[in-house]
């Protein structure tokens, strides 16, 4: 009896301790957001949101996708240019294709934003100058910078808190976490294969260790051959370098201008393991571009795992996981093999 | 063979303006003739017209051949041109500059052979500039530079030399040397020369005939050896106004009256 009371007391103390622990930036403590609230965005700015936003403008395809996942597509009044490029809109929120366009990652159409009278604007940090200008005009802007997995999770937390969708936000983060852990468990102790990632603009263009694409590979327990490159942008490499690396697998970025066949038929690299074994695949983008830091990007790592280690994680299993993800968060039925 | 230049009814146009009007003159081999006149009289334009650099109408016959109908290279075989200054942007060997004179006689892709190079050395010796052959043209004095250009014109083997104020950049002493040398070369190599000048005295000292131009037309021709002092004075007065003529050691000199 005494032991049980002691154990019970301990649990209560721990529970109380957990509740009273100071919250880290971005972590939410309550289920419902209470307005007005002050948010710190990913530029470090403090933004005051007076009330739950009804009219949201998203100038970034990543935040637009997130808003759909948080079931907020009806509140979106303006989105980024060229939405027809993204299959996910047609699949999950076709009405978004009719919304006015507010600009690109390089340039924002300020007047359009103002015309839409938004309660909240979400923009990438690259548009810092526009953000400051909007701020002066009294518009609430949250800047996002999803450069790696942690920052993606942080972005989800910030946006869900600002829009009173903390529940869904938490579940999204938890799902991402779950898939990530799944990979860890499935592939624990595996003999890592070497991977070369060919860039969008050119095959001999690749991403080094500091880039987001590197995370994609490492989560899938692959070894990025270009890990010695420390640039934080895409770099050119030579054929010789590629021959020296001799990767087991070659992955092409989802929007590559060249094809898998171009690589397989390139005589300069026919002696590479990946080409000899025909282990060349393109990251799919028939639903979303999984090699960019969209909320669903963990699926990119899952896909890569299914390509690198099909006997540990088959294509069928992968398809099931993808279907689960999209039906839960985007309310759509998908099939990766279409 | 007797060289002869015959110009009849020549009009020369520069930038659509009719500068030289209805000129006629003749020149023969070994003659050293001058074109004299005030600024703007058209003497440089006439020279460029004979060369074919600008538009002309009329007859220019050199040794019977009509010059305006000839191609650029053919023309260059018969007419040599020495301008006021030959400015080059970069250092260039004197010998390379002189060798350019061989261009009219070579096919498009034909290259210069040793035999022709030797000929160039001979001509350089004649003009007293053989020690400069390997030197940089830019390091020469004005007089030496002009001798190089004259050497080039001789290598060109043209029967008519046209010189546009070639002495204007030189000092008094060098001018005399150059003009003297030129006269010797003409006689030795059977060529004729037409030179534009500002200073009538140099023309009177060295030239056989002086063509006097005014307002684009040929006013008079002074035959330096034949015309008497009164004739020459009269003709010069048509161009220069109040002048007088002095005789010294067999030559005439113009002074302000």
């Amino acid at each position, binding site marked *: 009896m005494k032991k049980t009371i002691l154990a019970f007391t301990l649990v209560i103390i721990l529970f109380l301790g957990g509740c009273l622990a100071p919250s880290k930036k971005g972590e939410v403590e309550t289920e419902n957001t209470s307005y007005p609230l002050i948010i710190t965005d990913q530029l470090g700015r403090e933004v005051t949101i007076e009330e739950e936003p009804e009219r949201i403008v998203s100038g970034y395809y990543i935040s637009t996708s997130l808003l759909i996942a948080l079931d907020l597509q009806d509140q979106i009044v303006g989105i980024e240019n060229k939405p027809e490029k993204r299959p996910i809109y047609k699949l999950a929120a076709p009405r978004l294709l009719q919304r006015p366009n507010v600009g690109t*990652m*390089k340039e924002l159409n300020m007047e359009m934003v103002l015309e839409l009278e938004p309660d909240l604007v979400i923009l990438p940090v690259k548009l810092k100058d526009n953000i400051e200008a909007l701020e002066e005009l009294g518009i609430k802007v949250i800047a996002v910078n999803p450069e790696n997995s942690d920052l993606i999770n942080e972005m989800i937390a910030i946006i869900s808190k600002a829009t009173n969708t903390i529940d869904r936000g938490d579940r999204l983060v938890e799902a991402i976490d779950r898939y990530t852990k799944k990979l860890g468990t499935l592939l624990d102790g595996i003999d890592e294969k070497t991977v070369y990632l060919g860039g*969008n*603009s*050119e095959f*001999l*263009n690749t991403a*080094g260790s500091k880039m987001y694409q590197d995370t994609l590979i490492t989560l899938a327990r692959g070894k990025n051959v*270009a890990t010695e*490159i420390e*640039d934080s*942008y*895409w*770099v*050119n*490499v*030579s*054929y*010789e*370098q590629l*021959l*020296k690396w001799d990767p087991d697998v070659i992955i092409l970025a989802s*929007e590559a*201008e*060249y094809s898998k066949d171009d690589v397989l038929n390139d*005589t*300069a690299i*026919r*002696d590479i393991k990946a080409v000899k074994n025909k282990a060349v695949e393109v990251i799919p983008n028939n639903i979303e571009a999984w090699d960019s830091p969209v909320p669903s990007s963990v699926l990119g790592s899952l896909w890569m795992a299914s390509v690198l280690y099909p006997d540990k994680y088959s294509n069928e299993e992968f398809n099931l996981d993808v279907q689960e993800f999209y039906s839960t968060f985007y309310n759509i039925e998908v099939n990766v093999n279409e | 063979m007797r060289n002869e230049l015959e110009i009849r009814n020549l009009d020369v146009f520069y930038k659509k303006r009719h500068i030289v009007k209805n000129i006629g003159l003749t020149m023969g081999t070994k003659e050293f003739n001058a074109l004299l006149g005030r600024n703007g009289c058209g003497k440089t334009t006439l020279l*460029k017209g004979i*060369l074919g*650099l600008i538009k002309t109408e009329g007859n220019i016959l050199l040794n019977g051949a009509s010059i305006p109908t000839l191609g*650029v*290279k053919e023309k*260059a*075989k018969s*007419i*040599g*041109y020495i*301008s006021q200054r*030959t*400015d*080059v*942007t*970069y*250092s*260039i*060997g004197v*010998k*390379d500059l002189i060798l*350019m*004179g061989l*261009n*009219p006689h070579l096919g*498009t*892709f034909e*290259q*210069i052979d040793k035999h022709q190079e030797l000929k160039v050395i001979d001509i350089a010796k004649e003009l007293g500039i053989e020690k400069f052959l*390997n030197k*940089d043209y830019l390091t020469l004095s004005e007089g030496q530079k002009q001798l190089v250009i004259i050497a080039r014109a001789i290598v060109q083997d043209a029967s008519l030399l046209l010189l546009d104020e070639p002495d204007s950049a030189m000092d008094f002493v060098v001018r005399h040397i150059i003009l003297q040398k030129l006269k010797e070369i003409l006689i030795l190599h059977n060529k004729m020369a037409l030179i534009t000048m500002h200073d009538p005295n140099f023309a009177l000292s060295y030239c056989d005939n002086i063509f006097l131009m005014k307002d684009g037309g040929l006013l008079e021709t002074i035959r330096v050896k034949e015309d008497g002092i009164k004739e020459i004075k009269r003709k010069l007065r048509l161009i220069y106004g109040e002048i007088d003529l002095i005789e010294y050691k067999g030559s005439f000199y113009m002074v302000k009256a």
Partner: protein
Amino acid sequence: MNKGPRNGIFGFSVLLGFLCIISFRVGRYEMNTGDIFRVLTRTASPMKMNVFFNLRLPRTILVMLAGFTLAYVGSILQTIFKNPLAAPEIIGVSSGASAGAAFSIVALGGGFYVTMASAFIGAILALGMSLLIASKSNQKSLASFVLSGIAVNALAQSAIMFLKMAADPERQLASIEFWMMGGFNTITASKVRLVIPITLIALFFLILYRRQIEILSLKDDEARALGVNIKRIRPIILMLCSIAVASIVSVSGLVSFIGLIGPHLSRLIVKRNSSRVWMISGLIGSSLLLISDIIARSISASEIPISICTSFIGAPVLIYLMMRKEHLV
């Protein structure tokens, strides 16, 4: 005859041969001198033979040819335009090629051969336009060529800016920027087979025309009086220069500085401007570009764009030579 140029040609040829051997030896794929020897005697492994004959050898040859062409053409242009600041850039070849390449990247999918053809056509079109404008102008002098070159450059630049604006920032824009910085990392034997004959033929004719080009260094009137038909010859020379440069640039992207500095270095070393000295300029260009490429491909796993290296190496060499009071020959 001034012995200077001849000694210079010999000296720089030796230097170039030496650099060539270094270039064979250096690369990301490890090959030691023994390997090179085995490759040349056809007794090495197939992989090493592939690396050497398909990658390293073509790259070395193309880099040497590119350096030579750019510098030789630079010498010719500085001569014809009587301007020590002239370079292949001023006749519109570079900006025309860039516009062509940008167009291919943005509108035609940016495949290697398509971009190559597009860049080549862009360069020739730019020159053609230049020549056309110059011929139609009232003043048929050298100045009109310079002005028309400026006009065409401006047009090409605005086309490039427009294309950059239309480009997808995620991939196409970077592609354009990389192209304009130049690089030899994609060179293989098959790509080089197209380019080398065209460049060599154009260079061959330029060398044949050297006498006329030397005469073009004089005033127009004087050149004409020496029997050179300027109206015909100058466009021909410019066209040949453009073809030579365009074919190089179409595979390598823009390589800056070599065309400007090769001629200067050659004139600093041999104080003359003659066709022999242009040869030296070409050999200097070859050597400089080869050194730059050796560094660009070996310092790190990622390729450094070649124009960065050429400027970095060329400028100090120029400064050093300017500081020396006496001349080397």
